[in-house]
């Protein structure tokens, strides 16, 4: 056997193993998701959430909404947050050093005045410039915080410092929430008598082309443009299949930064959001889980599959590329910070399954796909033209399509947000087109994310590591 064939063999068998594992994951995710979704829907079918709205015993919640240059919509968005169905609530808007007139507009619209407020900086943040409340008793739930710009993680940390309640819900201020979103998100924290629920995630849906009025979703429409439409499919796949399945196993690692609820006490104990990473939402959940594992306390990260939060998805390749680039970097940074858990039996399922899954299938998938494709092309060009290569490509793509179609079916069977048959058929068409038109771009953006991070390493590695490790050290000392 020549060395070329040997390398080819190693390469091929490696990829073969990887593909089989991925396929097994798909099948398992499908199965777990079905069973978790079914249990949830059955339970949900006769739950009266109004009980929570009208009880004095309902847990107190702080809503944290960081805002940066949202001046055009902030008044309406705040109003819709204030009209959420929940009694025991405070709404904290964190103005992250906006350069526009957000703060002035808020002061005007809600009759705010600056109050004396001692900020208990349990999490280190950029300085707070002022805390405001309304003179009008109707807006007693509202608190506006003005702070020096420091990014989303920093703004959220300020919110956590200022929040008075046991639980907090972080949301993007431009998201549109359903009226009963908080009632549904609060329930998991009350349900479990044996495990402590440390966080609960919610579904994020795509709001492009939907009819929105006064910060409220009036009618759901399928996005008209191609890019948001593919992302609709992507989100259905991610939330309805993947996250549901991971919830079943109690191995969920990511709660979307746009909409999730957290136990404030534990967040503070493990050091809050890490402003050194672009993936602060995932990093926090991983750190909270790690904290609980290290203390050996029974815990759970819960997930609510109801479509409660709607957000505008990027509709240009430029913005989408930037987003995916950021996601890739966030994943890598999180995995790097917590590399200690990799196949570490002390961390149970978290170390043995969740972490390796993210490493192999979320972080490495784009890299393997990228180099696999390049390899295939080289192979194809160097040898005689092979007709079966066509079949090969078709086979790969069709398994992906199958998975997407299954996701669409789950959507139809459960929440069925797109009522018209035409819309569902459009989604099916998108599922077929995605692997050819959309997916290569996503892979390319992830590769660029990897590359950007690598370049940062070589250029400013020293500084990065120092800060990165400093945060980790801080976390670790707090864990001890």
């Amino acid at each position, binding site marked *: 056997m020549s060395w070329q064939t040997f390398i080819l063999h190693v390469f091929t068998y490696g990829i073969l193993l990887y593909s089989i594992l991925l396929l097994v994951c798909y099948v398992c995710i499908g199965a777990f998701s079905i069973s978790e979704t079914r249990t949830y829907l059955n339970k949900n079918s006769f739950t009266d959430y109004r009980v929570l709205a009208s009880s*004095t015993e309902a847990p107190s919640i702080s809503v944290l909404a960081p805002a940066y240059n949202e001046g055009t919509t902030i008044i309406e968005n705040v109003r819709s947050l204030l*009209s959420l169905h929940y*009694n025991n609530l405070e709404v904290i808007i964190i103005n992250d050093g906006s350069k526009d007139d957000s703060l002035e507009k808020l002061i005007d619209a809600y009759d705010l005045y600056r109050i004396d407020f001692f900020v208990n900086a349990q999490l280190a943040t950029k300085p707070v410039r002022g805390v405001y409340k309304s003179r009008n*008793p109707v807006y007693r739930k509202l608190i506006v915080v003005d702070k020096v710009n420091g990014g989303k993680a920093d703004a959220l940390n300020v919110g956590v410092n200022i929040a008075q309640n046991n639980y907090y819900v972080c949301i993007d201020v431009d998201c549109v929430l359903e009226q009963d979103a908080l009632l549904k998100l609060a329930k998991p924290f009350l349900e479990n008598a044996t495990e402590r629920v440390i966080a609960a995630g919610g579904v994020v849906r795509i709001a492009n082309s939907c009819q929105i009025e006064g*910060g409220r979703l009036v009618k759901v429409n399928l996005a008209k443009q191609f890019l948001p439409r593919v992302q609709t499919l992507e989100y259905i796949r991610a939330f309805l299949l993947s996250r549901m399945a991971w919830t079943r196993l109690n191995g969920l690692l990511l709660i979307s930064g746009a909409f999730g609820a957290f136990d404030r006490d534990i967040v503070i104990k493990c050091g809050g959001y890490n402003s050194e990473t672009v993936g602060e939402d995932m990093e926090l959940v991983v750190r909270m889980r790690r904290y609980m594992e290290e203390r050996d306390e029974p815990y759970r990260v819960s997930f609510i599959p109801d479509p409660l939060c709607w957000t505008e998805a990027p509709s240009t390749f430029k913005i989408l590329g930037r987003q995916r680039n950021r996601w890739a970097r966030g994943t890598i940074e999180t995995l790097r910070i917590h590399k200690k858990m990799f196949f570490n039996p002390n961390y149970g399922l978290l170390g043995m399954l969740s972490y390796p899954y993210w490493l192999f299938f979320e972080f490495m998938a784009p890299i393997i796909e990228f180099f696999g494709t390049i390899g295939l092309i080289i192979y194809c060009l160097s040898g005689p033209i092979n007709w079966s290569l066509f079949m090969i490509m078709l086979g790969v793509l069709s398994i992906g399509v199958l998975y997407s179609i299954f996701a669409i079916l789950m959507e139809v069977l459960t929440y069925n947000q797109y009522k018209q048959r035409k819309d569902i058929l459009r989604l099916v068409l998108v599922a077929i087109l995605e692997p050819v038109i959309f997916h290569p771009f996503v892979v390319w953006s992830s590769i660029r994310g990897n590359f950007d991070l690598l370049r940062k390493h070589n250029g400013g590695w020293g500084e990065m590591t120092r800060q990165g490790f400093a945060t980790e050290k801080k976390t670790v000392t707090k864990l001890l």
Partner: protein
Amino acid sequence: MKILVAEDDQLMLKMLEFRLKKDGHEIVVTHDGREAVAKLEEFKPDLVITDIMMPYLSGLEVVGAVKKKYPHGTPVIILSGMGQENVVLEAFQLGADDYITKPFSPNELSVRVHRFDLSITK
């Protein structure tokens, strides 16, 4: 009497409308707080009945809007599922004239509405 009703539950709204019409009142129904405040100007009601948890604007904001517009007239009855002390107190502090918690008796509502009717004719 001209009554403006704000309630986001369709079935409830229909029943309220039906009952109050039967009692001989003129009714305008609205489905959320924003619509209620908008109709205030055009309809000039003698009484407002409002839920608290509604889209866009809460019932408490409706109370605020009514009291700002008609500082001495137009009473407001709150009809809400929330019976917590702090909510009830807040409603009265904002100027609500009566507070009924759900589940409620339509007969009782009718009588309470009638009370405000008398105070106007007097």
